[in-house]
């Protein structure tokens, strides 16, 4: 599957070595593509990561279980909530704590709202990467409306620190449903506008169709998950296949496509945003208004989690996100491994897909894989 790197003779004058990143608007964060180009065609791509390594997994071994909860959200900047949920879920599984039903609904609401916000950011990104800056202005604004909702629900716009082992930190604010519905309506209207100007756009279609095709046989070899695999025709979604929280009580469709190119991936995500709005409306309607939203907790200051190991996964915006945790019965975690989908999507897959495309498309290609370097480097 891995073809040997073509031997290029840089001194021949035919090739140019070009670095895109680690600081570059066309890269979705701090990582670098080392491109070898011939004209504007890319003949070789090497991905470089490590510019953003903050050592979260090691940090977590030096902090108590409650102290880790404000850290994990920082692993993936644009969608911290998945980390919060998975950390809480993995600790709950090891301790046997069960978060109450009301908390499970609020968590689901949170995760889907986060997915929508993250997709809006991405939608702006894919537009901008192909010269559609206006779309970026629209979607990032609407993402901000969602951040307003997060602010009133959790007390913060980006690092919410709201889903805590045992439940959530507070009830939904008064009148939240109304304001959230209002934002959802606005986002929905915006999405139809985006469909007109982006997906029914000659330039966008021309540049994204056929770009970065992931062959179905690559999906499992490269560990591709999420919309990237669904665009290749795989009907796989953890929310449906291994339901967690209250997803088994929600109605939604698993969106798939077959072309598996940048356009198909974008279209799948676009449709998933509509599914997200559909799920959010169900959550707003069905989230219990009464009852506990936190399980009975021990004194968290010296919380000893029984020895054990487990892996908990969830369908995040970009694919399968997972937490593997080993505990030894002490107040500290022995080892945590965070599995972010960007690890597989942004390193090996990008190296493979970039070859044969041209310089102008690398940014769009990378955005179409929806990768976040921060979650590669935990």
């Amino acid at each position, binding site marked *: 599957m891995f073809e040997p790197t073509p031997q290029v003779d840089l001194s021949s004058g035919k090739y140019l070595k070009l670095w895109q990143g680690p600081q570059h608007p066309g890269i979705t964060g701090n990582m670098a593509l080392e491109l070898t180009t011939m004209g504007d065609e890319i003949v070789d791509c090497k991905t470089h990561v490590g510019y953003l390594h903050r050592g979260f997994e090691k940090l977590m071994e030096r*902090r*108590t279980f*409650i*102290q*880790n*909860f*404000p*850290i994990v959200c920082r692993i993936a900047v644009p969608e911290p909530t998945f980390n919060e949920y998975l950390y809480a879920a993995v600790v709950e599984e090891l301790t046997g704590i069960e978060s109450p039903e009301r908390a499970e609904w609020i968590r689901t609401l949170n995760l889907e709202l986060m997915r929508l916000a993250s997709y809006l950011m991405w939608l702006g990104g894919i537009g901008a990467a192909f010269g559609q800056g*206006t779309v970026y*202005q*629209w979607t990032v*604004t609407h993402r*901000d409306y969602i951040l*307003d909702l997060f*602010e*009133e*629900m*959790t*007390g*913060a716009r980006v*690092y919410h*620190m709201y889903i805590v082992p045992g*439940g959530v*930190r*507070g*009830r939904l*604010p008064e009148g939240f449903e109304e304001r959230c519905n209002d934002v959802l309506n606005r986002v929905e209207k915006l999405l139809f*506008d985006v469909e*007109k*100007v*982006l997906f*029914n*756009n*000659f*330039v966008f*279609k*021309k540049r994204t169709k056929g770009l970065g095709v992931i062959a179905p046989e690559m999906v499992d070899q490269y560990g591709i998950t999420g919309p990237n695999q669904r665009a290749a025709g795989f009907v796989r979604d953890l929310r449906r296949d291994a339901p967690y929280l209250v997803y088994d009580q929600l109605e939604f469709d698993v969106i798939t496509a077959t072309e598996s190119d940048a356009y198909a991936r974008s279209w799948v995500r676009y449709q998933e945003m509509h599914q997200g709005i559909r799920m959010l409306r169900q959550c707003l309607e069905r989230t219990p208004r009464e009852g*506990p*939203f*936190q399980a*009975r*907790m*021990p*004194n*968290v*200051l*010296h919380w000893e989690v029984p020895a054990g190991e487990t892996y908990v996964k969830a369908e995040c915006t970009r694919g399968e996100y997972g937490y593997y945790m080993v505990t030894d019965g002490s107040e500290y975690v022995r080892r945590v491994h965070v599995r972010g989908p960007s690890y597989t999507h942004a390193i090996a897959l990008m190296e493979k897909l970039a070859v044969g495309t041209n310089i102008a498309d690398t940014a769009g290609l990378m955005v179409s894989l929806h990768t976040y370097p921060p979650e590669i480097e935990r």
Partner: protein
Amino acid sequence: MSLKDLISPFYVWQRAFEKPYTQKRPIEDRPGAPRYRGFHMNSEDCIGCGTCESICQNRAIDMVPVEGLEQRPGDSGLRPRFDYGRCCWCALCVDICTTRSLHLSNHYAWVTEDPDAFHFTAGTDPMPWNENSLGYRRDDDYHLLVHDRIEMEMLGPDESVRGFDEVMKGYTEEQAVLEADRCVECGICVATCPAHMSVPDYIRSVRKRDYETGLRLLYETNPFSSTCGRICTHRCETVCVMGYQGDPIAIRFLKRAIVDRVPAERYREILGDDVSDNGRTVGVIGAGPGGMSAAYYLRRLGYGVTVYEAQARAGGMLRYGVPSYRLPDDQLDKDIDYIRSLGVEVRFNTLVGRDVTFQSLLDTHDAVFLAVGLNQPSALRINGEEHPRVLSGLKVLDDVANGLDPGIGRKVAVIGGGNVAMDAARVSRRMGAEVTVLYRRRIEDMPADPDEIHESQAEGCTLVAQAIPVEIKPAASEAQVTIVWGEAEMVADDKGGRPRPVLQEDRMHEETYDCVIAAIGQGGQIDFIPSDYREQIEFKWNKFVPGDYQQTGLAKLFVGGDIANSRADAISAIEDGHHAARGIHRFLGGSADA
């Protein structure tokens, strides 16, 4: 591709006529959401427990002394200082705050010329957001601490009143660990405990099920741990920070949990029995908690100790004043036997002044520690109190402890509101009497332990508050006595003291009982000290006023216990004994660090 794909994108122009999204910040202020996690605020309720500092994962909080802060019990005098170079506004400090004094305001932007302003003490430094009423507060239904105490199994009142079995059953190991787990280890209790026991450390040893370490920690400051684990006045629990939002930690019972799990035979092995003799001797007057505590620590320092005890058994008020349903004899013996096993000699039935002279003690020993306690019941000071059916609470308890029948009859009135009154009342219930307790003030003013008050009521004692005895009269039968008492109204004290009861002469009552038990306090008896010595010693209200290290004006004499402190409880006597032991050691040329 179609023609539509060429035309459709021009739809964007339609948006040119819509209102722009942009907000004119900072021209227009945009306040944070009502729950926004902005800058820290701290209210006056803060007691400086430092739990915020413990939980902060960024070490952004330092507990620092604050100038001008009024000193009050249960307050460390420290306040959280925030380092906004480290803070991540996770608000765990708010979630864990034991007094709920710490909040975040919804203020999130602040510009100042002071480059050091990112370091500030919340609540005391004048910050512009200090009056902010919005911002993150912990939800009422969200807890990171366990607020409810693990209840200890106890005999029901129907069962307890039938005999002298211990009422409190003690924690099981699981219960003790769960209760210990609630502790936040702030150490506010340590300053309040008269003996300054290392409470958080021994609670941790319960949590870790390491009872040997626990026992060693207990004996560093208290050789009466089995006793105090049952009947201590637990001042520590009154300041426990967990009490602000729930129940204080059952510190007293966790002490018992350690002792209950170490058999007496293992004490010498765990605590050590290596006691050298330094050739000097100390005489101790009284084998109560004060005297035996001094004896223990002096013996540990190598002194030969002789204790002179008037009674036939050691323990003092713990033995003769505390009924066995609260403190079983074998538990008191566990403490005392270990002290004696180290070579402390106790001379029983030896009353100083009768069997030996005070002067001979001063002559034989290098120093003398006196802790004779208070064993003389205070008089009621009303007419007719010399009636033979008026008994003293101490006498009743003493008789019961010695297995004698106090002869109280079937219908008893107890006068007083302290622990002796409660003990006398509960003992009388156990002897089958119908008991009425008369107390001058309100029930909440009673100096007795609240548990004692509740349990005595549960066992069927009738508590009559605001009742002032006026006269004792002979009744028709010689075996009975009549008491006249009047209702009292509480009148606020002009000088700011506690309200005082004023007799209402139009509301008088008269009732006949088989006996009246007077338990309104007790005084000391120190006639055995020759008067020329007494002139060298400072007294106030018939109590000693000791100097540094419990020393008196008579240099060789150190004093402690109920007769030398105002708290008059076991734990204070124990600390007096320990403190005096160090003082005697210093006085006799030993190191100040002992």
